[in-house]
């Protein structure tokens, strides 16, 4: 297992649990239990049943005919946009809410950027009748208004994060503070493969259903279970982790990770962590992050709230450092154009996060018989205003 986690909670040099003592009991409880719980037959059964009947899995693997024709290669879209609540995030929140129940927790907190994870968390809390508090940066509250409305409808309390860049990083700080203040009955549902061990691994395992399905779906469609490429955008890295998971150790499968270059990698307004980041600690994990020479975390920027994060999960730091995955940066403009192209060619409005992954086709040439699987991590309903304003439609 070169690319997966080791038994100390590290991916190569990255990972671990760099947390204040106040979080230790909760994180340790989780660390000791998560694998055991996930292996319980009753857990598996409930998880799989909810993924099927509630989330709507398997999500289709859709051969995008017109997009493929345009780029002269074979493009399959993994349709996480069709999941209940509209993104891959729900795979993880279903898993974590079942985990929280088994650990006897009563109160759920979460951070959110694009609001997809917040909605997915509010959703599972409603489903299970649990209290839900979601922290969200003030800027993200403004730019992802539909998701804020959805969380309210679902009975969650949305608390604005007012510090720092007022985006995902700061919402995460606030969620961690809440957890520190509520150490007994609260479970923190982290929304990506970030945070202290065992979160990155646990979230990756819940998202692994994505590549598990890709395997048999490709087998059905192409007579082989492995694609030549898997492309995914990386905010924290959970949709990518899910799409890569079963291919991590198979180096015949090329992994492409797409980060948000904002207004340009070197513009000072970017969230391209692998290009700009250095090793360090963020939100309890040793990984790559954008920071000053002095070790202060830089305020990131991206038009996409879900990618507007100055770090990546430790798995991705490792995939970058080892060269296992190719990292690509895509600007706001390139992403928006790629998103509109998908609307026009395939009738699918992608989340702006996913549009970043789609922009790879404008950057990189694939061979006509390459099988390219792209993680369409979410739908763009939350982003309509941003698209409409951008293109003055």
């Amino acid at each position, binding site marked *: 297992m070169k690319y997966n986690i080791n038994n100390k909670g590290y991916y190569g040099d990255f990972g671990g649990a760099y947390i*204040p003592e106040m979080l230790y*009991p909760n994180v340790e409880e989780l660390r000791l239990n998560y694998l055991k719980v996930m292996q319980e037959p009753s857990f598996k059964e409930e998880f799989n049943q909810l993924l099927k009947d509630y989330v709507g899995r398997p999500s289709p693997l859709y051969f995008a005919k017109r997009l493929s024709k345009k780029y002269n290669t074979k493009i399959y879209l993994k349709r996480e946009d069709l999941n209940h609540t509209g993104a891959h995030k729900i795979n993880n929140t279903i898993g974590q809410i079942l985990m929280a129940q088994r650990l006897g927790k009563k109160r759920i907190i979460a951070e959110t950027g694009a609001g997809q994870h917040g909605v997915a968390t509010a959703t599972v809390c409603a489903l299970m009748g649990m209290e839900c508090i979601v922290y969200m940066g003030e800027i993200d509250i403004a730019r992802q208004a539909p998701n804020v409305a959805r969380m309210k409808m679902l009975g969650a309390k949305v608390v604005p994060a007012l510090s720092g860049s007022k985006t995902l990083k700061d919402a995460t700080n606030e969620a*961690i503070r809440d957890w520190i203040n509520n150490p007994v009955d609260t479970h923190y549902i982290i929304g990506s493969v970030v945070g202290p061990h065992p979160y990155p691994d646990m979230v990756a395992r819940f998202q692994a259903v994505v590549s598990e399905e890709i395997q048999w779906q490709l087998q059905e469609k192409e007579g082989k279970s492995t694609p030549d490429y898997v492309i995914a955008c990386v905010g924290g890295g959970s949709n990518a982790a899910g799409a890569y998971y079963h291919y991590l150790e198979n180096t015949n499968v090329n992994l492409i990770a797409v980060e948000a270059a904002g207004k340009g990698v070197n513009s000072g307004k970017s969230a391209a962590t692998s290009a700009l980041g250095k090793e360090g*600690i963020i939100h309890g994990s040793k990984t790559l992050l954008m*920071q000053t020479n*002095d070790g*202060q975390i830089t305020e990131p920027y991206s038009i996409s709230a879900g990618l507007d994060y100055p770090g990546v999960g430790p798995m991705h730091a490792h995939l970058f450092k080892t060269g296992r995955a190719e990292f690509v940066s895509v600007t706001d403009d390139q992403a928006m154009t790629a998103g509109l192209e998908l609307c026009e060619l395939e009738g699918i409005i992608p989340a702006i996060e996913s549009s970043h992954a789609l922009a790879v086709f404008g950057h990189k040439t694939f061979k006509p018989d390459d099988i390219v699987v792209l993680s369409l991590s979410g739908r763009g309903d939350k982003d309509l205003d941003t698209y409409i304003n951008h293109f003055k439609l």
Partner: protein
Amino acid sequence: MNRINQKLKENKKLLSIYFSAGFPKLDDTVSIIENLEKNGVDMIEIGLPFSDPLADGPTIQASSTQALKNGMTTNVLFNQLKDIRKTVSIPLILMGYFNPMLQYGVEAFCKKCQDIGIDGLIIPDLPVDVYNEKYKAIFEKYGLINVFLITPQTSVERINFIDSISNGFIYMVSSASVTGSSSGFGEAQTNYFKRIADMNLKNPQIIGFGISDSETFKQATKYAKGAIIGSAFIKHLKSEGVTKINNFTSLILR
């Protein structure tokens, strides 16, 4: 002998004060330290500001943010402190998050601390086991005491383990909570204070979080060797400025 150990031997309850370096003004650091010593404070935690202080409450967060805006960096702080031992003799502890130290280089950071005359470090997000495996030797090489935290949720085994690897004091978080959030101690907390006191650990305990006035200071030091005040002092600095530190300390120590 390290100034911290020396101080802990004194037959008195210790008042320790935390402040964020570079706040309210960038260059206030030295004068705050000197004033605190002058006014009877026993020990000082100098906060190295961090952009994302996730274990801190709003008051300390805000002071860190202001300090960073004022231009505080690790180098600036080391520079401000370079002659501190010419005027100040009480124990000085640097308190900060791990990432800035990591970027500085842990060994270089520790060496610099020794050069300046820093006695110990508190790094809330450096886990005990990582410290133990990777950094203990370096800290010891430069004569630095690393201080660990315990909380009401920390298990007995873990407290014993932390006690075993500590060689100064244990930072006892009054309640599992970010700084500056409670006011006054209830029964749960005093029970916890008693419980820990009864463990007769080899390291003395100093209680932090929620100490804001002479009453909470007395309550805490009834069970522990000392107490640390952070947010309350920063609020005072913010409203009264650097020159009236005696107004604050005299209220606590009266």
